[in-house]
């Protein structure tokens, strides 16, 4: 019995000592020593993370990782990508398979109990895509037309409810895939397609002049990168990098990426009094 106790105590002491050392050496130092960042992201969702026709992983999530790599090594390409599925985002962080996950991760309280979120780098929402020169000019016209309007949406349990939150009387047609949804809009079966603002913007970037945004967004959700909990130093570092991307010295990098994937030119953060407190 005493022997077992000794072993148990020894094991406990080793474990505590181990975690004490781990706390001293921040992920930041580990990554710097390693010489490259291990970024967890997906590979099948443009414009967030996808393999482009030149066989490279690209997208807005990827650019956020590149921003962090640039801050670490002065070189945005010093990244090893782990092309993970959406389900793997949290497990891969918790088991140290990746240093950082930037994969259009919606900030929720449940997730925040398992990992730590950085500051958000994008606010996602649902928007309405319309054909240029179509019957209804914008959101107001769609809303005024009431039940005459048909909206195409990706099949989903909450699809009907989601559309009705913006257009209470509209007909809702659900489609199996994104291409079918856009097909419905092109062929005039639907007057508008309701989809994520980012997807809608990307589609407009890919097909300039054919479509426009009805000008109304709803269902807000924040997208943040995630890190393994318990390493404040590393979290602060990534937060600082993202923050300065959106407001400081790296603004051109962030704005350039934003323009590429969402087609919108961002205005330069106001000089003088910090924008955060306005």
């Amino acid at each position, binding site marked *: 019995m005493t022997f077992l106790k000794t072993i148990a105590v020894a094991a406990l002491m080793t474990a505590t000592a181990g975690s004490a050392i781990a706390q001293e050496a921040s992920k930041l130092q580990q990554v710097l020593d390693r010489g490259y960042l291990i970024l967890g992201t997906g590979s*099948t969702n443009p414009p967030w993370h996808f393999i482009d026709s030149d066989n490279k992983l690209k997208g807005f999530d990827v650019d956020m990782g590149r921003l962090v790599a640039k801050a670490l090594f002065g070189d945005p390409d010093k990244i090893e990508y*782990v092309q*993970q599925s959406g*389900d793997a985002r949290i497990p891969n962080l918790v088991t*140290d398979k990746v240093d950082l996950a930037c994969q259009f991760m919606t900030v929720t309280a449940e997730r925040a109990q398992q990992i730590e979120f950085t500051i958000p780098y994008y606010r996602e929402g649902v928007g309405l895509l319309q054909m240029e020169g179509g019957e209804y000019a914008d959101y107001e016209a769609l809303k005024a037309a009431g039940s005459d309007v048909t909206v195409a949406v990706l099949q989903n349990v909450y699809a009907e409810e989601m559309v009705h939150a913006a257009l209470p009387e509209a007909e809702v047609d659900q489609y199996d895939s*994104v291409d079918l949804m856009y097909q419905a809009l092109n062929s005039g079966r639907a007057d508008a397609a309701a989809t994520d603002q980012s997807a809608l913007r990307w589609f407009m970037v890919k097909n300039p002049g054919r479509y426009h945004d009805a000008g109304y967004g709803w269902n807000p959700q924040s997208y943040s990168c995630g890190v393994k909990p318990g390493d404040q130093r590393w979290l602060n570092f990534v937060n600082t990098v993202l923050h300065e991307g959106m407001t400081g010295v790296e603004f051109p990098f962030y704005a350039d990426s934003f323009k590429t994937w969402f087609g919108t030119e961002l205005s330069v953060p106001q000089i003088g009094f910090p924008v955060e407190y306005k």
Partner: protein
Amino acid sequence: MNFSLFLTELWNARMNLLAGLGDTVLISVASVLLGTFLGVFVGLAMTYGNKPTRFGVRLYIDFLRGTPVFVLILACFYILSVVGLDLSAFQAGVLALTMFCSSHVGEIVRGALKAIPAGQTEAAKSIGLTFGQTFAYVLLPQALRQILPTWVNTATEIVKASTLLSIIGVVELLLATQQVISRTYLSLEFYLFVGFVYFILNFLIEQAGRAVERRISIP
């Protein structure tokens, strides 16, 4: 279906798809070979082992066969890394498929050996063959004829199960295809295409199995 657009995109993505195919073949070949090797020992232990060995191996087989491959893959990747064995996604995937394959091959081998009348082993013993010799010259050649058809079945199962490795981030053929689809939206065309490629792979395995069967069959 837009055929010419599909061909253009297929040509554009050829290197990625080939790399994916390479990974799929490598994963399948490694898992089937290792799994078969391990499986033969599992089968032998099930047939000739003493009671505690048989009980342990039975647990191993039942546990692996009773668990979805998907869960096995996740367990090999995540649970092992918590324990301190940090395998890459590729290694963890091959390990999971190897274990899955070995449990099936183990059952196949056990069944095949059990089907050979005990009198043959006794006869081999009486003329002074060692167990190794008995196995290699008397039992295995006969068992192989039983094993092959079901073994081919297991091998094709492994090829199909390799698609599940995409969940832990191995870019095998299916994930490589999904990456192309996400850019081009040509879902129907590319899924049909990749389905055809998997069929060809499994057809080749089946034909190879048939060829071996012909060689070892009693004339």
